[in-house]
């Protein structure tokens, strides 16, 4: 049994080296690319060198030996006798992998296993070094080996000098002498020659140990946390304050007469300190996503190399923080998605060249907070998902029927890739293509309350968006009141606050048909009354002023009218129970200062509930920007002529002039009926009449004897008469207006000539 002190050393070694090796991996990748700062090699050399020393002291000779071999190779790189090649990079990366494996074994079993296991790898590393040394010696150009190098590591020179393989017995006995210093395990030298000659065997033996060890690393990683020293100091200060307050409290409790003020004072102090303490401790649990991402450059490199592809990885938002437990659970799904993107998504350089893309594929991983959730996007510029093939595959596997396949929207078809047993890879590779994977990714992410969404354009690329709730995450939020309840609105979705008082409160809110809107700097802002939206009882004393919280959801803004606005607070987001999962307008709950829970509003959910944005609508990429606006006025940016008119009871309406052929007046008596519909004879033809008032509201009781004012409208080659009230004017306007999803027959509304005008959607009315 090892002593406590030794145990402590071992733990420190494992933890320190784990971090060191992460840096090491990144550094190797950068060195390979050639964009590493000059000191990088020295830095990673030190990582391995320190490990070698510590492991030697503690008697872990396999680690020591392997580290030593790596160190020798790196030293050659450092002194410039050797240049970085992809093979050397791979060798060095494998080294860190093996070192990690050995460390894990030390962590779990307390020993690092027989030296024979690593013998082959150590040999390879040294061989790599010697290979170049040999060429250096052969070719006079390089100027020979630095004599200092050989002197520096006696053991390394011992192995390498005789050459590799050919004089294997030498190579094995020689190190035995050198390593005798460290009291090596007996028998290791005897095994060494075999290991050197039959290199693959020990490697194969070592591999099965990995999965079991993997599970234990997670445990090792979880048991320690890095905390910002400043934060730790703050926590310590708070604990100090807490102790002081407690002392005061005990003192008061013992005194005979207690002044109520002094109790109040202490309770306030304790209140404050505990709250800050709570928050501080919570913060120690938050970790940047970069901790998980750190290994991706390496994963990408390896997978890409294996598949003969070139991939550039960009990581955006590495410092986005989320809870440790969540961080752990997204590690595997993310790895899977990344592997998938490279294997299925990004094409081979030749194929990319054919498609006119740069040979190097581009993979972006992006993380950001939005609406109380963490969003992670993995975007590639590869081939995209061939929906026809996905459907065909699903059909072949019997996952859908032909009829279902034909009815599937693109979005639903894309979602098929999440079905178990579906793989679109033409051939099964080692990396992916076995049809287990995306379904597992989806289940794992849904298990932590998240969602996965895939969007893909054939030939352009695929983007996978993961949304994860910020369980335990701390977000700044605005606290508002409505219907006697408190709600928290995450600051990320907040745009601005508007308060209307007195006269402006009375006149500020206008209506588009029945939908309340507010003119915010000339633009119409649809309003949602939170109290009505959530079916809460009205406030006891209705305020004459309006508080409008302007929110952003899915690139559209809307105003949320609340009874009162209080403060902004940092809140701890807690997820809602399964019983409340069906309520998209709540992102979670939090506990307020007084200990009562309050619900957190989800801007997108509220907007969807209020039909401000469509239900299925998700955040789209930049290319999707303004889609909604497009449908509102097909001619956005281009000024078109609009015909202003009114109906009895609706005095501000407009329709596009370009399709209106003529304005006519018909005597009331000329109306006849054709097929049950009102019609008039117009230029020898029967022209059906459409009374707009029946479609967009307003009263229909026009004087029966008054002549009808009709806009003759061309619709798909025939004429239709639109019956209107008064025709006022023709104006030029760009047609850009606010869409409001509620009123039928309207494109939306716009401010024309300083007044809110509803824009008529004529095709929608004619085809209703």
């Amino acid at each position, binding site marked *: 049994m090892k002593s406590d002190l030794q145990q402590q050393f071992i733990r420190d070694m494992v933890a320190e080296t784990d971090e060191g090796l992460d840096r090491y991996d990144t550094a190797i990748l950068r060195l390979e690319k050639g964009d590493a700062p000059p000191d990088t090699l020295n830095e990673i050399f030190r990582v391995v060198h320190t490990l070698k020393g510590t492991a030697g002291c503690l008697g872990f000779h396999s680690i020591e030996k392997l580290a030593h071999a790596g160190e020798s190779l790196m030293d050659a790189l450092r002194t410039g006798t050797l240049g970085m090649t992809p093979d050397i990079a791979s060798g060095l990366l494998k080294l860190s992998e093996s070192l990690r494996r050995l460390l894990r074994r030390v962590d779990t079993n307390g020993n690092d296993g027989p030296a024979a296991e690593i013998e082959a790898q150590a040999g390879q590393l040294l061989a790599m070094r010697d290979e170049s040394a040999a060429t250096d010696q052969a070719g006079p150009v390089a100027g020979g080996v630095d004599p200092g190098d050989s002197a520096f590591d006696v053991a390394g020179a011992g192995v390498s000098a005789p050459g590799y393989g050919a004089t294997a017995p030498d190579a094995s006995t020689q190190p035995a002498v050198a390593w005798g210093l460290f009291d090596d395990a007996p028998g290791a030298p005897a095994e060494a020659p075999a290991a050197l000659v039959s290199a693959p065997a020990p490697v194969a033996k070592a591999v099965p140990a990995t999965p079991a060890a993997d599970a234990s690393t997670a445990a090792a990683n979880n048991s320690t946390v890095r905390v910002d020293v400043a934060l730790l100091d703050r926590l310590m200060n708070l604990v100090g304050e807490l102790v002081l307050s407690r002392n005061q409290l005990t003192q008061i409790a013992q005194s005979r007469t207690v002044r109520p003020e002094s109790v109040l004072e202490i309770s306030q102090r304790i209140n404050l300190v505990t709250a800050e303490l709570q928050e501080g401790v919570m913060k120690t649990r938050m970790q940047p996503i970069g901790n998980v991402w750190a290994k991706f450059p390496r994963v990408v490199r390896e997978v890409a190399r294996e598949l003969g592809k070139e991939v550039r990885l960009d990581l955006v938002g590495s410092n986005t923080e989320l809870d440790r437990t969540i961080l752990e659970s997204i590690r595997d799904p993310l790895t899977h998605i990344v592997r998938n993107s490279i294997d299925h998504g990004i094409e081979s350089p030749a194929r990319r060249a054919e498609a006119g893309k740069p040979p190097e594929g581009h993979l972006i991983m992006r993380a950001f907070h939005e609406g109380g959730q963490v969003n992670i996007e993995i975007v590639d510029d590869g081939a995209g998902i061939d929906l026809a093939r996905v459907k065909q595959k699903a059909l072949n596997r019997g996952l859908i029927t032909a009829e279902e396949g034909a009815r599937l929207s693109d979005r639903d078809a894309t979602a098929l890739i999440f079905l178990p047993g579906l793989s679109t890879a033409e051939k099964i590779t080692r990396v992916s293509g076995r049809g287990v994977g995306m379904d597992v990714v989806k289940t794992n992410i849904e298990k932590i309350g998240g969602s996965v969404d895939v969007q893909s354009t054939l030939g352009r690329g695929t983007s996978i968006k993961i949304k994860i709730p910020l369980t335990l995450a701390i977000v700044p939020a605005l606290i508002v009141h409505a219907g006697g309840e408190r709600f928290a609105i995450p600051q990320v979705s907040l745009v601005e606050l508007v308060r209307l008082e007195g006269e402006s409160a009375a006149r500020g809110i206008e209506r588009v048909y029945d939908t309340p809107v507010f003119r915010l700097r000339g633009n119409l802002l649809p309003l949602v009354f939170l109290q009505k939206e*959530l079916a809460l009882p009205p406030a006891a004393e209705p305020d004459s002023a309006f508080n409008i919280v302007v929110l952003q959801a899915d690139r559209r803004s809307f105003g949320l009218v609340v009874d009162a606005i209080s403060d902004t607070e940092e809140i701890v987001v807690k997820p*809602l129970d399964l*019983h*409340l999962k069906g309520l998209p307008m709540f992102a979670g709950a939090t506990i307020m200062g007084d*200990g009562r*829970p309050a619900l957190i509003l989800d801007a997108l959910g509220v907007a969807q509930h209020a039909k401000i944005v469509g239900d299925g609508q998700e955040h789209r990429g930049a290319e999707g920007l303004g889609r909604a606006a497009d449908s509102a006025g097909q001619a956005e940016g281009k000024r078109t002529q609009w015909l202003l008119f009114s109906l009895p009871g609706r005095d501000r309406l407009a329709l596009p002039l370009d399709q209106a052929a003529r304005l006519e007046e018909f005597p009331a008596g000329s109306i006849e009926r054709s097929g049950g519909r009102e019609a008039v004879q117009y230029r020898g033809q029967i022209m059906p009449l459409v009374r707009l008032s029946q479609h967009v509201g307003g009263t229909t009781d026009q004087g029966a004897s008054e002549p009808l004012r009709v806009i003759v409208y061309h619709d798909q080659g025939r004429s239709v008469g639109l019956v209107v009230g008064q025709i006022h004017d023709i104006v030029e306007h760009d047609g850009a207006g606010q869409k409001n999803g509620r009123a039928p027959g309207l494109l939306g509304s716009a401010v024309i000539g300083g007044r809110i005008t509803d824009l008529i959607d004529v095709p929608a009315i004619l085809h209703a």
Partner: protein
Amino acid sequence: MPKQLCTFYIADLFLGLDVLAVQEVLRASELARVPLAPRHVEGLLNLRGQIVTAIDLRRRLGLAPRETGAESMFMIVRTDNAFVALIVDRVGDVIEVDPGSFEEPPDTLRGAIRGLLSGVHKLPGSLLHILDADQTAAVPAHAA
């Protein structure tokens, strides 16, 4: 082996839950309402920093609503897949029952209680309705 049950009352029903599923019993306190929530959800409760959904067992069992101002208690139920507060009228003793007195619910049993009741214990003078903790704390199929 005798089984320990935590007993409670709702209206004139005498009910019991496996004592291992019941974490604690609390006097009812004020809840934060959840607008537009399913009917059986009464609100949210702060249990020492954790947010727990409070479920009105009367509604869940399809009984008449509690009179306003009537006493009630929270039973915090924790199972492998649920953590909720059940609102009950009154909490009784923890009792030991003889497995021999257990009987499955009658086939003729109807209504909301059907899926929640795992059986009854025939006690002298009364029938103790045993609720399945998992089912009772789970989301009702129709309210999802």
